[in-house]
């Protein structure tokens, strides 16, 4: 069994959390390294970014590449190559969603400036309304409780981690007619 070591930054969950959850679900032991001053360790990473997963000291950068690698080896990436491709497609669609949604989310979480109401209207709501109907449709089609096929994949972990965030701000936002 290879030795796994994960590098990520403290104190956010972010995409490091997706990697941790995948490793946990696969029941793979790993060293969970969280840096306070991650930029001091940039030189140890292939692309100057985190997360990085070291597999017997050989690095894999990029969260989705890491997750797909672990998931594929442990039956968490779909049962066929076509299902695996659909898991990838959902991940990519989430990335498209996130590139728009984060213009609202990051300032809302305190990382960045801006008029939160305007950002929510201009970016948060449209991004949500473009993406989550696709997720709903997918769940209806599989009818298994999972996004792809009949068992859990890393796409489920990715989306499930996002939903509480959305749920929370929906519950905490002021009552409005529309």
């Amino acid at each position, binding site marked *: 069994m290879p030795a796994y070591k994960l590098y990520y930054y403290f104190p956010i969950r972010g995409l490091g959390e997706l990697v941790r959850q995948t490793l946990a679900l696969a029941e793979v032991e790993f060293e969970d390294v969280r840096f306070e001053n991650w930029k001091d360790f940039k030189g140890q990473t*292939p*692309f*100057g970014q985190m997360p990085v997963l070291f*597999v017997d000291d*050989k690095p*894999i*950068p*990029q*969260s*989705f*590449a*890491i997750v*797909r*690698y672990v998931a*594929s*080896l442990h039956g968490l990436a779909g049962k066929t*190559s*076509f299902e*695996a*491709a*659909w898991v*990838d*497609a959902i*991940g*990519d*669609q989430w*990335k498209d969603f996130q*590139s728009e949604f984060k213009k609202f989310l990051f300032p809302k979480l305190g990382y960045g400036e801006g008029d939160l109401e305007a950002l929510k209207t201009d970016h948060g709501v449209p991004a949500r309304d473009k993406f989550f109907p*696709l997720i709903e449709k997918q769940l209806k089609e599989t009818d298994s409780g999972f996004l792809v096929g009949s068992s859990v994949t890393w796409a489920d972990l990715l989306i499930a981690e996002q939903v509480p965030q959305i749920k929370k701000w929906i519950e905490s936002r002021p009552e409005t007619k529309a």
Partner: protein
Amino acid sequence: MPEYRLHYINMRGLAECARQLFVLSGTPYEDIRHDPQEWMGQLKAVSAFNRLPFLDIDDKVLPQSTAINRYLAKQFGFAGKTPFDEARVDALADQFKDYWADLVPFTYAMYSKEKDPETFEQKKNEVAIPARDKLFHILEKEYKANGSTGFLIGDSLTWVDLLISDHMDVLEGLVPGFFDDFPGMMNLKKTVTSMAKLKEWLDKRPQTKY
């Protein structure tokens, strides 16, 4: 043999890597190029994720270009020789995707280059050059670390080699010499584009700027 239909518009864009994978593997496919108006009107409603490109394999659809590229690469043997190499190919492709997202303001200016050359110049300097330097520094490092195989990962072509080469060709068409400072990648492009089956495709494919 499955029946493949690749749906996109008349551009290289997000579908060219998939097209090149079909060509290199000698796999027949239907190269469907929709009219954008027709797409907006009719097809959007019925395709998965309402987006182009999508791949139809015996009437089962797969959206998202990166997922399509990886799926075809795996089917045809261009994804990497080991799970670890596959992960490294994926990581480079993801890094390219991040770069592509950084380029968005420049990409808009690129499509209107004729109408507004000043904005094109401005975005080239403010957006494209820094983004290029960040990614291609990484690519040069990976290429060098891979020894003299001529490819980015392992000792044979993978789909990320195709992604990078065609992108370089598009940008060089708009800004000659744009990648001259990156000799490894210039070499990669030369290696990739001189592969016999691909060269044939490059000569006969519909000629589009991007």
